[in-house]
């Protein structure tokens, strides 16, 4: 048996297809997508005193990030497979921030200079109750991160820190949030993240989402609308066993 791995070049995206339409070249996604836990106060409202008890002991001080790996990335219209052993999934709508150039230790005041544009991220999870050390089984399944429908260039998004995000399930509005509610606005989040890790051109950093995320069952379709960005629509289907 012969196995080969690529030794040069850089193509972390799933091969053979463009993931999303990118409306202003030369943007190109790197394939790295970072989610942010608890950037919306609703998580702490939901947890109440539990956020101060074990295993958490206290709310986090620094941004809490997680990774949506390349196998999770999907485009508009791609079906999201609900695993056979769960009745429904969580669908967490977030503004995705596309990075324009290497951002290391950026100051809040200059952070927006490192942003190329915005898109919609649907961060799908198997419902789980712990935020302590959740299994990646919940968040890293194939196709669990639809993106799109296109990158909208930063100059065309007037107020990304005051923008409404609406989630519809089969046309019914199930969640309404606004980026102005976030604990760390875009520039502050970029400052606090790039203090410890560099974000590179084409990386996507999610701004975060309200809790609890809406639930969706097989056979339903999720549409996420962000004013000025577009609509990201994905059907949820029962996974083949």
């Amino acid at each position, binding site marked *: *048996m012969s*196995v*080969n*791995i*690529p*030794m*040069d*070049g*850089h*193509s*972390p995206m*799933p091969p053979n297809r463009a993931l999303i339409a990118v409306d202003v070249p030369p943007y190109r996604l*790197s394939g*790295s997508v*970072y989610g942010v*836990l*608890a950037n919306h106060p609703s998580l702490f409202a939901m947890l109440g005193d539990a956020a101060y008890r074990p*295993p*958490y*002991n*206290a709310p*986090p*001080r*620094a*941004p*809490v*990030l*997680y*990774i949506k*790996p*390349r*196998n*999770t990335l999907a485009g508009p219209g791609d079906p999201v497979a609900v*695993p056979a052993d769960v009745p429904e999934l969580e669908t967490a709508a977030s503004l995705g921030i596309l990075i324009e150039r290497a951002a*290391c*230790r950026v100051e809040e005041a200059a952070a927006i200079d490192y942003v190329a544009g915005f898109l919609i991220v649907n961060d799908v999870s198997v419902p789980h109750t712990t*935020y*302590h*050390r*959740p*299994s*990646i*089984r919940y968040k*890293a*399944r*194939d196709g669990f991160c639809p993106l799109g429908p296109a990158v909208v260039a930063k100059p065309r998004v007037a107020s990304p820190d005051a923008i409404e995000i609406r989630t519809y399930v089969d046309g019914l509005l199930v969640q309404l949030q606004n980026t102005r509610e976030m604990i760390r606005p875009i520039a502050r989040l970029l400052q606090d993240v790039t203090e*410890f*890790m*560099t*974000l*590179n051109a084409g*990386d996507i950093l999610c701004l975060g989402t309200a809790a609890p995320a809406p639930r969706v069952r097989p056979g339903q379709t999720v549409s996420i609308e962000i004013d000025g960005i577009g609509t990201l629509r994905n059907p949820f289907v029962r996974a083949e066993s």
Partner: protein
Amino acid sequence: MKRARVAYAGAIHEATPLQPGDGTAGLELEDGRRLAESQVVWLPPFEVGTIIALGLNYADHAKELAFAAQEEPLIFLKGPGTLQGHRGQTRRPQGVKFMHYECELAVVVGREARRVGRERALEHVAGYCIANDYAIRDYLENWYRPNLRVKNRDGATLLGPWFVDAADVPDPGNLALRTYVNGELKQQGNTRDLIFDISYLIHYLSAFMTLSPGDVILTGTPEGVVNVMPGDEVACEIDGLGRLVNTVVDDAVFGR
């Protein structure tokens, strides 16, 4: 076969060791140039996809950190910005109390794996390399542990020096690991003590996520992690894979 990716004289090259089994004796570029280890810039030895890392996958290390037995592997993901090659520098921020290395066997996927049984799992492995996966425990918070501020810092994950073909590693389940700090042996273990072995990990992961060529599994570290300080040279060795060296540096090197 051992292969490296190095930068030399304005280009990136594939390189092989001058003497099989000893990467430190020098290397030869694909174009015939023969060079000393210190003449090139060592990059991660393959194009790295998803970085999958195991926590507490050696019973002794789990005990060292006071963890109980697990029902399923404890896995977290890392991003590409944290990678470096052999002989890189890793920053220790001023004022932190506990920064430590983690010598690990890195398993490189060579063929797409989806719902793979344990008995066929190793067929999806292209090869192996050494990983040193640093952590700074001061930044540990109890949300999505271990959070990226602990484990995904710039330059905190070293891979190399060589990518070693699976065919040259007949028993990846019996490899001794050693870490030296300034020449002094500090960490020792053997992959036979993995709680979840390579076959199981590929089986487990591929049940819910498709593994693709270039994805890498850092299989965890045994006991013997100690605090390291600026100026320390940390060398991780694994039988048959070589010796991965790097240096801990302070903020001043990075203009902080």
